[in-house]
């Protein structure tokens, strides 16, 4: 087991390094750098001005050198201007001589400086990640139990009416990407002119003092910007629901498949013949074995949730990690984008590792060769 985890960790590191390099290379292509120079300087810079701007800031070194500097295994560049001003990757011209470092990269814990937000990348990413972590937590709290319940209920009696309606429901949710369900939810539940809200207002259930569904003009709020500081059911439920719904269908289908398989097993038949109550069979005999496969699926679903997070944060204007990714990529903010990709790649690889280990741990029949 130890060797297995060690080998997986090694492959993981290699993968992460390769992926980071690809991102690094793509963001450091010349047209991208040119755009960066023009947005940083001014849009009417001549080609020579762009070149000297980039040269000064070390962007025109070979990609490998720059990558090494970013990683922190190569000394950062130092530029000496003709007027005697000296600055480099790790210090500005005003830093005293003795405090100037040679190495400043990821290994030294220095993630660089965001050109869009004019802030330290490390703290920026950490802050936004916290916001998204909060969103993800609620998504998982809503998604996992409801998906498991739907799957188990559908799978315990294969072919029943309940099974068929729940399976249709899960197929429908897997066919609804976040940008579709989000749009429908906003129009239906968060618009003051359309959908349910005007109807409920008319009936006096909404929008007045002491009304059943609150005093707001709409049932839910179509923007989650306020939820970043003060999340309430009213302003936070729609984004959470939108992300959960798309992932839910898949987990529910996997749970159903695993549940139906378990329910046809010999030992379940024995239990039934013994005269055990049906609810006891489902809860005590079947459930534990049926939940092994969904565990893997849930872990592998987390990277997919990341996509949903980007879409939903853009749609609902919740300024978290996904929103940061869009901003960084849209403005070619190289160091921010690199940090964002390192985090997301790490999330993907870690969940894969956890799902592998968890599967082995949960299922005693699987032994690693």
């Amino acid at each position, binding site marked *: 087991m130890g060797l297995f985890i060690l080998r997986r960790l090694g492959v993981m590191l290699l993968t992460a390094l390769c992926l980071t390099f690809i991102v690094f290379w793509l963001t450091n292509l010349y047209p991208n750098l040119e755009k960066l120079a023009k947005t940083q300087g001014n849009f009417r810079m001549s080609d020579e001005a762009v070149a000297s701007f980039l040269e000064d800031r070390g962007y025109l070194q070979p990609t490998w050198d720059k990558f090494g500097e970013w990683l922190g295994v190569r000394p950062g560049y130092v530029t000496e201007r003709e007027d005697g001003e000296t600055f480099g990757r790790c210090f500005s011209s005003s830093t005293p001589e003795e405090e100037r470092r040679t190495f400043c990269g990821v290994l030294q814990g220095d993630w660089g400086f965001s050109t869009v937000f004019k802030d330290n990348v490390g703290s920026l990413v950490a802050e936004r990640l916290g916001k998204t972590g909060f969103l993800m937590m609620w998504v998982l709290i809503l998604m996992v139990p409801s998906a498991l319940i739907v799957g188990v209920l559908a799978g315990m009696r294969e072919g029943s009416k309940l099974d068929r309606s729940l399976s249709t429901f899960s197929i429908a949710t897997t066919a609804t990407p976040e*940008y579709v369900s989000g749009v429908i939810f906003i129009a239906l539940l968060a*618009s003051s002119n359309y959908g349910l809200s005007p109807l409920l207002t008319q009936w006096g259930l909404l929008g007045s003092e002491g009304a059943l569904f609150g005093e707001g003009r709409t049932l839910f709020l179509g923007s989650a910007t306020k939820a970043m500081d003060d999340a309430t059911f009213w302003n936070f439920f729609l984004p959470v629901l939108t992300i959960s719904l798309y992932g839910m269908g898949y987990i529910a289908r996997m749970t159903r498949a695993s549940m139906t398989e378990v329910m046809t097993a010999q030992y379940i038949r024995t239990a039934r013949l013994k005269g055990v109550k049906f609810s006891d069979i489902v809860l005590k005999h079947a459930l534990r074995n049926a939940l092994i496969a969904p565990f893997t699926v849930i872990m592998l679903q987390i990277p997919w949730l990341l996509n949903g997070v980007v879409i939903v944060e853009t749609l609902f204007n919740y300024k978290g990690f996904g929103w940061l990714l869009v901003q960084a*990529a849209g403005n070619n903010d190289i160091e921010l984008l690199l940090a964002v990709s390192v985090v997301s790649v790490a999330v*993907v690889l870690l969940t894969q590792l956890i799902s592998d280990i968890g599967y082995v741990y949960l299922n005693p029949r699987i032994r690693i060769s």
Partner: protein
Amino acid sequence: MEPLTWTGSLSGLNLIFQLALGLLILGIIVQILISLVPSADSRAVNADGTLSANTGISGFVGTLVNWFFFAVVGIILIYVILGIFMGTGAGIIGGMSRQFLPTWIALIVTFALSITYKRKLGLYGKLFDSTVGMIGFAIVMFWVFTGVLGGIFDLIVTHDSLSQASGMKNKLPGTPLRGAEEGEYAWYLLGGDNLARDVFSRLVKGSWVVVLIAPLATLFAFMVGITLGLPAGYYGGKLDTILSFVANLILAFPVILLFFLLVTPEIVLTGIPNYMAAVLFVFPLIFVAVLLNSRYYTQPSFRTPLLAVVLGVMAWAYLSMISNDGTIIDNASYTIPGLPTFLDWIPMPSEILVVFVSVVFVNSPTVFRIVRGLALDIKTRDYVAAAQTRGEGPWYIMLWEILPNARGPLIVDFCLRIGYTTILLGTLGFFGLGLESESPDWGSTINAGRRLLSLYPHAAIAPALSLLTLVLGLNLLADGLREESLRD
């Protein structure tokens, strides 16, 4: 002119429809609740020794639900069929139904022909034995026909998808066109968008973009995945290790990040998508060449002309796909000349090429993993051993023994993957990547409509629902196919 209502002169039916729909939903909820309670069916032994069970309350509710379901479907059919005859007299639904007439005819002809000859049509014919499969197929074909008839032949659309009409900005569905001229369609059936263009026509035009790109991109991804996955699974060893590592590398990338990195104007300038296209589009050629060669290499007199003709046509198609205005890559520092313009018969604008390439690139590793897994499984079968004993070459075994036996799961995955590709295309449009902003495709339209979502939702809701139905149809189709292919 009066604005159209949704059902026009058929509005008398609305109350009945709402009643039936409400009762149907209520019935389904009751049914679910009842099924949670264990039923104590009373069984009676008949005189002839047979048992008969009382269906009880759940059976009664079941019958009711069935009736309400048929009532709802029946009323919807009345709306649609009367709409074909009454046109806008039957409101917006009638008007749309009349516009979709070519699609209805094509659908009915397809279904009539397929059901008549279903025993001779193999797996496709078997699809018509499963209700779920037929529903899925009907929805998918509805959009395919709409895309083809509306996108190429301009049959269904009411207005030009780019022209703006004065005073129609953000107008509600069914608004009459101000100052409509003779011969011009007098209404915006699904309203106007924020640039005063007709939402309905853009919807139809946009379906063509989706119907064209999604299956083709999926097909290319399958070619790449199959060509690499079969040898990886069959040979194993170093080749497998390297290919699997690369596939996992791409899979570990969050899709959206990859899109943001690949589909930007700056990256297009460097020509990287063109290089990727040049590499990825070669795979169909390799696939077909190996497929034909491994089968016919014992008959060189037949194989050589066959290969020459097939590969010649495919190479021509390949070159015209990757070249644009006579160049393959044209960036600031250098130019690689391609096929001259007069031989270039596939117009592939660079922004579509980028979208196409990135979607193929994202999909192929997953296909690779599936094919590799299937090949690993099938290569242990007896008929593969028999072929090896006969002395068949490895490529013959892979393409003519393993691949046909893996077709069931692959066809099912193909359907699901088209749906997934549709979602990806929508995601690209939603972030305004790739296709230009006036493109009528559904993702871009949703993106344009979402800014005014709570005030004028119709411009975003219409494409959102269309995308939902298409992907749902593909999922149902895949389910039906899976069911039928398991039955063999």
